[in-house]
């Protein structure tokens, strides 16, 4: 019996199942108590289970890693909402991209600026820059800027989670209520995690948000690329 259990514990399929089960549970909790963000409850339950059952993260990740891999295709899949909303919002598109571009630029400047003011090392500052965009993009941007992809991933997750939970409230306080404005702000600041939250409450906001997050991903990578080219042109590489 024990050998059977140990055998099952070594199967990636078990961890895929565990992740799906935790996710299904978190969606139920969210339906019952809307203020509990599913990502938060799912992570807490999962971390607790791994801890209690003494499963090392590396073993869990043999199965759980499948979902992490799927973030790449999921980013490409954003092309579908982008295309669909792009057709419907033809007239708004140039202004929306301007707005998201401004948001992305401000985000990178404040993230890097504040980290730098607080005495973070150059590597940490670079890791903070792409924190507003979805994980697969942020990790690659971080790597291209010689940041630490693991730190970036942590920043991305926390930004998304905090933005999804308190973002709509902050916008309400600032009297920003228009569906387009809320969608753009959450998409540009809290990427996929914020977007998924919006979709659960408003179709319109969610659609704009997915468009904005895809744009933010593109703009942030382009800005990072320009930063790199600028440094290379200066001939100094990274300071």
């Amino acid at each position: 019996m024990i050998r059977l259990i140990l055998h099952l514990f070594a199967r990636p399929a078990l961890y895929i199942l565990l992740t799906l089960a935790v996710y299904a549970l978190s969606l139920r909790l969210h339906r019952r108590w809307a203020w509990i963000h599913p990502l938060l409850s799912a992570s807490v339950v999962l971390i607790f289970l791994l801890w209690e059952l003494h499963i090392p993260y590396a073993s869990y990740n043999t199965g759980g890693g499948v979902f992490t891999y799927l973030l790449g295709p999921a980013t490409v899949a954003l092309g579908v909402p982008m295309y669909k909303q792009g057709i419907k919002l033809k007239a708004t598109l140039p202004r929306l991209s301007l707005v998201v571009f401004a948001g992305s630029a401000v985000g990178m400047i404040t993230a890097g600026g504040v980290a730098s003011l607080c005495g973070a090392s150059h590597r940490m500052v670079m890791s903070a820059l792409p924190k507003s965009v979805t994980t697969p993009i942020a990790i690659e941007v971080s790597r291209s800027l010689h940041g630490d992809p693991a730190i970036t991933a942590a920043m991305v997750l926390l930004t998304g989670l905090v933005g999804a939970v308190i973002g709509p409230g902050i916008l309400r306080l600032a009297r920003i209520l228009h569906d387009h404005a809320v969608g753009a702000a959450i998409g540009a600041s809290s990427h996929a995690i914020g977007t998924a939250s919006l979709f659960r409450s408003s179709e319109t906001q969610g659609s704009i948000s997915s468009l904005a997050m895809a744009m933010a991903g593109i703009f942030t990578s382009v800005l990072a690329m320009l930063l790199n080219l600028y440094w290379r042109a200066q001939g100094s590489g990274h300071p």
Partner: protein
Amino acid sequence: MLGFVIIVAFELLGAGLHRLGVPLPGSVLGLILFTLALMLGLVRLEWVERSALLLVRHMTLLFIPLMAGLTTMTAELRKNGVALLASLGASLLAVLLTTGGLAHLLLRDDEIAEINREADLLP
């Protein structure tokens, strides 16, 4: 299933181009090329729509293993905690308010009805 094949193919295409020296992340290249292919009609919406929306709708699920992974790097996070948290909070607020504020100014006249209110993104 065809949808997943097409989407993963575009992701690989993006990764390949990045590898060959295009200075943008592979997934961004994949996203741009995929959107262009949809716009040019090379890929039909109905081939990929269901698979794509399945992935997009359940993106929260895809973040769960990474969240659990944060427990393995607490030491590193604690060392730089203050700077990173300050950066996170300030930047989040700045992005929310600039984007939201600008969008409020520039987009508020647009008809909300411009967007199809039929639940076409959710089943």
